[in-house]
C-alpha cells in the first residue's frame, strides 16, 4: 500500500500511482536516451511488482502505442519515413501479431503463459544485455586506441537473391519485398507474446540486414511499431481481456515526459558508459527472471478459474 493507491480494474489490484509514474518516467527516459521503446524492461518490471504477466504484456503494448506516436511524430516532421517499407513491414506485422495473440491465448488456457513470458524474456534480455555489454566495451576500447577502421555498413549476400524485388526510393534500396514482410512478422509475434515494440530487433535488422540508411530507420520502425502494437492491443482486449487501460495510461503519462527529457539528455551524455549501464540493468532483470524460473517454488500447486 503506497501513499496514493490506484485500483487497476483489469489487473485487479491496487498499486501506488506515484510509483507507477516514476516507473513510467524512468523507462521513458531510458527509451529517450537510447532510442529504444523500453517495452522489454517495462513488462518484466511490471511482473516484479505483482501485475499478472498476461496483463503486463497486453498493457505494455497499449502503452507503447502512445509512446511510439510521441516519438514517431518528431521523426516524421523531418520526413524520415519510408512509407513503402513501413507498409510492407506492417503487413508482416499484422500476420505475426495475429499468430502471436493466438499462441498467447493457447498458452493461457494451458497455464503456461507465465512461464513462456518469463522464459522468453530471460532468453531475450540475457542475449541483449550480453551483446550490449560487449559492444559498449569494444567501442570504449576502440575509442581509447583511436583510429580503428570502420565496418562496412551494407554488404551483398544471399538475401539479395530473393524474388519479388522492389525499389525503395526513400531508402535508396532495391531488395525483395519478402525481407521487410518477414522481419515485420517476427517482430509482430514478439510484440504479441512479450508486449514489446521490437525496436531493439528491428533497428539493427533494418540497418545491417536490409541496409537502410540510418536516418530512415527510427521513423520507419516506429511507423510499423505503432500499428502493430495497436493491433496487438485490440486483439489482446478481444481474445484475452488483459489490457488494463488505467495501468497503460499512468505509465504513458510518465513515459512520454521521461522520453522527451531522455532525448535531450541522450545528446549530452557519453555513449559507452551509458550503454554499459543499460546492459547491466538488462542483465540484472534477466538474472532475476532466471532465478525465479529455476528456484523451487514454495508452492508447487496453483489454482486458476476456467474461463467458460
Amino acid at each position, binding site marked *: 500500500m503506497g501513499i496514493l493507491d490506484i485500483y487497476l480494474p483489469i489487473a485487479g489490484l491496487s498499486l501506488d500511482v506515484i510509483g507507477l509514474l516514476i516507473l513510467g518516467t524512468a523507462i521513458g527516459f531510458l527509451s529517450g536516451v537510447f532510442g529504444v521503446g523500453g517495452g522489454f524492461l517495462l513488462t518484466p518490471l511490471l511482473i516484479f511488482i505483482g501485475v499478472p504477466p498476461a496483463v503486463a504484456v497486453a498493457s505494455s503494448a497499449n502503452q507503447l502505442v502512445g509512446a511510439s506516436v510521441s516519438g514517431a511524430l518528431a521523426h516524421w516532421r523531418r520526413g524520415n519515413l519510408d512509407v513503402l517499407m513501413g507498409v510492407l513491414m506492417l503487413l508482416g506485422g499484422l500476420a505475426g501479431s495475429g499468430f502471436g495473440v493466438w499462441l498467447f491465448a493457447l498458452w493461457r488456457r494451458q497455464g503456461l503463459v507465465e512461464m513462456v513470458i518469463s522464459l522468453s524474456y530471460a532468453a531475450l534480455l540475457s542475449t541483449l544485455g550480453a551483446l550490449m555489454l560487449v559492444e559498449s566495451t569494444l567501442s570504449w576500447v576502440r575509442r581509447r586506441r583511436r583510429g580503428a577502421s570502420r565496418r562496412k555498413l551494407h554488404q551483398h549476400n544471399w538475401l539479395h537473391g530473393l524474388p519479388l524485388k522492389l525499389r525503395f526510393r526513400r531508402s535508396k534500396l532495391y531488395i525483395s519485398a519478402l525481407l521487410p514482410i518477414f522481419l515485420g512478422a517476427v517482430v509482430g509475434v514478439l510484440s504479441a507474446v512479450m508486449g514489446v515494440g521490437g525496436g531493439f530487433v528491428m533497428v539493427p535488422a533494418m540497418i545491417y540486414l536490409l541496409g537502410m540508411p540510418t536516418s530512415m530507420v527510427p521513423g520507419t520502425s516506429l511507423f510499423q511499431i505503432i500499428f502493430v502494437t495497436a493491433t496487438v492491443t485490440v486483439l489482446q482486449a478481444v481474445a484475452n481481456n488483459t489490457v488494463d487501460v488505467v495501468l497503460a495510461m499512468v505509465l504513458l503519462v510518465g513515459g512520454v515526459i521521461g522520453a522527451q527529457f531522455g532525448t535531450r539528455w541522450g545528446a549530452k551524455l557519453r555513449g559507452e558508459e551509458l550503454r554499459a549501464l543499460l546492459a547491466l540493468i538488462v542483465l540484472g532483470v534477466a538474472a532475476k527472471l532466471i532465478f525465479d524460473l529455476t528456484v523451487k517454488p514454495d508452492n508447487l500447486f*496453483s489454482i486458476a478459474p476456467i474461463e467458460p
Partner: protein
Amino acid sequence: MRMRGTILTLLLLLAGLPAHAEQPLLADLTSHLIAITTGFTGTSVVLFGATDGPGDIIAIVRGPERDVVVRQKRHLAGIWVNVPNVAFAAVPSFYAVFSNRSLDQIAPAGMQALHQIGMRNLRLEARGSKRPAPEIATYRAALLDEEQREGMYSEQAGSVSFLGDRLFRATIAFPANVPTGTYFVEVLLVRNGNVISGQTTPLVVSEIGLSADLNEFAQAYALAYGLIAVVIAAALGWLASLPFRDA
C-alpha cells in the same frame, strides 16, 4: 461504534421475543451488500441472531461457484513448469465455517458429512479426469490449501460468541480480493449433535464505481474497449509531443 449500537439494539429486540417463538433460530447480517470501491481493503459483516434455547451454532459462508483448474509444477530441464492438472467443477470461490466450538465437539463426523459442514466435506467433483482417486485427492487437498493461503477458505472454531444462552454473534471478515457475486450464509442450530434448524441468508458482493464499470465494459464490449484504448494512447502520445515540437 454506531454499527455496534445498532447490533446491540437488534439483539435486545430479539431477546425480548417470547422464548418459544415459532422459529427455533433467527439470524441476520448487519449488511446484505458489500460494495467494492476503488480503495477497498477488505471489510467485515456481523452475523447475529437468537435461538430458542441452548445449542451450538454453525455458520457456513459460501461464495459463488466456478470451475477451477489445479495445476502442479514439475521440474523440467532446470525450470519449474505447470504440467499436470485436474479440473474441478462448481468450486465455491469463498468458503468459511464459523462455530462456537470445534466442529467435532458439536456434531459427529457422519452428521457433518450429511450437512456438508467443513472443508473436508466440501463436495468437489473432478471434471472428466481419468486419474486414480488418490491422485485426485492430492489435487483436492492442494486446492483447499491454496484457497486457505489466499484467505478464501477458513474454519474458525470459537468465532461465534454467545451472549447468555440464546443470543449469538460472529464477525465474518472478507479480504481485499474477495470474489464478486452472490454469497449464501447458512446458519445451523445444532443440539446434541443433531441439526435442529437452519436458515439461509443471501449476501451480495459487487464492485461499484468507475473501475467496475470499466471492467464490465471491457468484458462486454471487448472490441470497442480495445479500440478506445488505442485511440486514447495515440492521442496522449500526440499531445505529449506538442510542447516539444519546435525543439
